[in-house]
Structures are given as C-alpha cells and as structure tokens.
C-alpha cells in the first residue's frame, strides 16, 4: 500500500472579477470542492481545458494560494500558514515548474548560478559543496557542464526546461508540481523531457502532480488521473482504466478528441458549444448544457463524485444510475 504524500480535502477557491469596466464585482469559484491524493513516488495527472481550475488546484496544493475552504495536508500535517517559517521549510520539499521556462529563469544569471541559488537561500549544505551539488544536478537533467555557464537566452526551449527542472530538483523535493511542463516543446524534445521526468522520479522517489491538457503525455507519465471541468473533478481513477474506458461523458469526449496517427477515421464525439465562463457556471452538473446524455435532474442537482467498484470515481447522474453502457 502506497502512502499519501499530499492530500486535498474539499478545496474551494474563488476569485472576484469585475464584469467589464464599470460592472460590479462577481465572485466565481475557480475550484469547487476538490479532493484528491498524490501518492508517494507516483504521479497524479490533473487534466482539463482552460478554465477548469487545474492550475489553481496546483497552486493551492503548494500553498501558493490559500483555499477558501478545505484543507491541504502534506505528509499528514496541515500546511502551515503562508510565509511563516514553517511554511518556508516545507516549501523546500515541494517544488513547481511551469510551461514557460524562460519566464521562470532570470535572464541575467548563468544556469549554474540559478540552480545553486535555492541552496544559498535556504542555507542547505556546506557553502563549499553547493556548486558541486548544483553541477551534479545539471548533469542529472542532461545539461552537461558545458551549459553551466550559459545564460538562459543561449539555451533552446528544451534545455531551459531542463534547467528549470534542475533548479527545482536541487532542493531534493519530495513533491514536484508540473504545470504544462512540456506543452511548449516540440515532439522530439518533449519526449526527452518526459523520459527525464520519469527517470528522475524513479531515481529520487519523487511524487508528481502533473497538470496537463495533453492526454497522450498524461497516459505516458501518470498512474492516476483526475479530470476537471469548471472547477470540479468529474472523473478520477487509474490512468489506463480511465483513458481506455472513460465513463463520464466529458471524459469520453476528451479522449475521443485526441488525434492518433494512423487512425484516419474514427467516430469522434464532437461536443456542442464551448465551456462556459467560470463566472457563469451552469446550475446542477456544470457540463449538462453540452452533455449528450443530460436529463432533467442534471440541470438541478450537482452530481457527487461516487467511488466505483474498480476504485475509480465518477460524478455523473446518468453513470450513477447505470443507464449507460460503460
């Protein structure tokens, strides 16, 4: 039995936005009652389209944003208050990398300096050994010593993402949250970074929360998957099971939308309409206006995430009633 390293219980997070220049402020729930676990040494993928709340969930998980409701527990203990000394200590064990590595790097510092920097900030290890530790980590991510003295501008996109990864990993974190880490990379480079992440996970026993819209990459890298739509999890389970046999109508559409080479024609589920603005969340099941299976109750009652016999969970009235071939 694997142990849970990160546990989110009933997390909600809402923002106030002003509707237009003169309008009143409207609060909307970016994340609504989300519960999930990241298991030690394993990867949980968080997938969804823009506005699904997957990135917000990632930031709340790291304690970068406080939840309005619910708790985040890291290794069994609640996250300390943001910016407290205890929080900063815990944060060294939880790192995050983003889609755009150039934005995450300081253009004026060399790669080596940036990878070493967190060690200096948190005063980790003897001063004399820090450079060696940083160099070792650069080697581990496949950025040879030759790149150590380069500035970010001198590296390619894939190399920059490796540098960002090295900087996150030099702290020897237990948990790494990756927000679309390979989306901006070309296929050939993307494969390099995906392999690297998986190798490092094996070697360091790293736990990953992998936020992505790319189901192909998610299938490759994750053991478990949570699908989000407008702030709520609609389906959760083992990645292989969910992707080969999706149950929620939204997951089905997402899976069928994945273009697969060598599969010239296949029956694709093309959803009507577009995800609504999170500020104008439909009543009941937020997916019901686009759902091919929607019934009357879907417009009024929010379906709860119900655990199924195979360990997966689905939030859908129709699936729960068993009136759909699964």
């Amino acid at each position: 039995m694997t142990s849970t390293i990160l546990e989110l219980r009933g997390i909600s997070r809402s923002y106030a936005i002003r509707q237009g220049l003169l309008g009143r402020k409207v609060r909307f729930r970016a994340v609504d009652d989300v519960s999930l676990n990241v298991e030690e040494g394993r990867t949980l993928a968080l997938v969804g389209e823009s506005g699904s709340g997957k990135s917000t969930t990632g930031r709340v998980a790291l304690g970068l944003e406080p939840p309005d409701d619910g708790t985040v527990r890291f290794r069994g203990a609640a996250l300390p208050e943001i910016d407290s000394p205890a929080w900063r200590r815990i944060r060294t064990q939880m790192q995050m990398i983003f889609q755009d590595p150039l934005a995450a790097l300081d253009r004026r510092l060399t790669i080596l300096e940036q990878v070493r920097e967190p060690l200096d900030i948190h005063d980790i290890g003897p001063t004399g050994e820090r450079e060696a530790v940083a160099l070792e980590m650069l080697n581990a991510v496949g950025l040879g010593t030759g790149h150590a003295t380069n500035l970010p501008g001198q590296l390619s996109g894939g190399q920059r993402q490796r540098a960002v990864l090295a900087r996150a990993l030099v702290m020897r974190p237990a948990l790494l949250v990756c927000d679309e880490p390979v989306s901006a990379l070309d296929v050939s480079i993307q494969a390099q970074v995906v392999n690297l992440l998986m190798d490092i996970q094996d070697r360091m026993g790293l736990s990953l929360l992998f936020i992505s819209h790319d189901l192909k990459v998610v299938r490759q890298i994750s053991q478990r998957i949570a699908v989000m739509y407008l702030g709520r999890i609609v389906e959760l389970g083992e990645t292989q099971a969910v992707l080969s046999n999706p149950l929620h109508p939204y997951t089905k559409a997402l899976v069928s939308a994945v273009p697969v080479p060598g599969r010239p024609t296949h029956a694709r589920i093309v959803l009507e309409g577009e995800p609504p603005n999170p500020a104008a969340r439909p009543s009941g099941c937020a997916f019901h206006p686009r759902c091919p299976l929607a019934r009357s109750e879907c417009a009024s009652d929010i379906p709860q995430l119900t655990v199924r016999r195979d360990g997966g969970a689905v939030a859908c009235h129709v699936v729960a009633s068993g009136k759909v071939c699964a």
Partner: protein
Amino acid sequence: MVRYLLIRLLRAFITITLVVTFAFIVLRVSGDPAISIMGDNASPEAMAAFRKEWGLDQSIFIQYFNYVTAIFQGDFGHSMRGGGPALDLVVSRIPATVMLTLPALLLKVAIGVPAGIYAALHHDKSLDRTVMVTAVAGYTVPSFVLGLLLVQIFALWMPLLPTGGTGELSHLILPVLTLGIGGAAILARFVRSAMLEVLGQPYIRTANAKGIPWGAVVRAHALPNAAIPTVTIIGFMVGSLIAGSVVTESVFSWPGVGNLLVVSVTARDLSVVQCILLLVAATMVLSNMFVDILYGILDPRLSNANSEGR
C-alpha cells in the same frame, strides 16, 4: 456609468487640489512678496502694512484656509501688483495665448501625424531615416534656441518677419513655428512607433491575406488601431493649450498667459501665479477626461467590455 463619472470627477478634484496645495506651499516658502513688490528700499512699516493687507503675516495654515474658502466663493484673489482681480487678469491673457497655441497644435497634428505614418510605411528606408533624424533634431532643440534661431534667420538675416510684438498676422508666424516644430517632431516619432507596432500585428497579415490592397489595409486596418495610443499624446497637447508656451512667449514678448506667469513669478505676485496654476491643472485634467472618452469611442474593447461576456 454615473458611478464611473463620479469616480472620475473625484479623481480630477483630488488632482487639482494637490497641484494647488503644492503650488501654494512652494510659493509661500520660496520668497517674500513684500520685498519683491515693494522693493528693497521700502520702510519696515510699509512692508509690514503690505504683509498685513495681503494676510501674509498670518500662519500658512490660515492663509491656505482663507485661500481655499475664497476659491469656493469664486474669489481667486487680487493681483498684488496691479490690484485687479487675478482671474480677470489671467483670463484677459488667454486669447493671446490660444492665438499661438491653437495654430501650433494644428501644425503639430498636420505635420506630425502624416510624417509618422509615412516614416512607418517606409520603415528602415532612407525616407524613414530622414524623417526620424529631422524629428530627433526637432525635439532635442530647446524651444528658446529654436525661437532665437528662427528670429536670427527670418527676422535678422532675411528681414521677412518681425522679431516680436503683436497686432498683425506676421507676428504670429515665428512663435507658432517655434511651438509647432518641436511638438510635430514628438508626435511624428510617437505616431511612427504606434504605426510600426500595429503593422506588425497578426490582423494586418490577415487583412493582406484577404486580398485587400495595401493602401486600404493601412487606411481601414492599421490607422484606426494606431489612433488609439496617438490620442493620448494629442490630448496632452490639447491640455497645454493654455500654458504650454511660457518660453516661446518670453522669447517673442508675446502678451499671453505664459508671459504673465513669468512676470508674476519674478515679482512674487502669488495670487496670479496660483490662479494660472489652477487653470493649467484644470485644463490638463479636463483634456485627460476627454482622452478617456475618446478612448472609449476608438477602442471597443474598453467601451463595451461588460456588454456580453462570453
């Protein structure tokens, strides 16, 4: 909408108050009007009487309070030199100033906008460089240098135009040129960079890909977008209609507001200086509001951002 206007008005009020207060304090601490107006030779009694008459013997807080109260009653004080109402004195000078600044503004727009567009359309060609070198020269030369230069050339070497004074149309030409050339240069550079930015946008490529002739792409697709930032700087120029010609008026001894300001500052005629500064602040603020309204008309992203949502 009402809420929006109220906020804008409140902000305008605060801006004007800050300017007026700042001017008030600086003027009070920077010198004694009694000395500059009565002269060094005046007797101490006469000085004291002067200070008492203008309330300068009271504390600065009481002076400020009295000043503000008076403004709300429409009283902008009296000139310490001439004795007449400060406001009347200032207002009487406005037509002369506008006679310079308005043609100068038209000149700036008439030269600056086409020159900027032209330069942008010939980006990196010799035409562009010529326009830009001229523009840099135009706005790096201070207006008193430019003014004196123009006088030297057109009034002294080639005695075509008068060196200063008022009365005839010919008197206007040199001061208007002095004011207009610098502004035209600034505007040309600004319009050029706005145009270049717009011409690099994807929607310009889309318009080309639609088969719209280049002239029409520029007119219908590029210019309306480049107009949005350009309006800001023209608005700023409109704001300086009243008091944007201090140096030029001095050079050409033009009897406008700017000249009055210089004379009044030198003489420490506090009421007049304050009145001018208040007027300047008010026109600036007004033109800013005008720019904001124009923005709303030119850029649909601002005016109806709340009409539909998605």
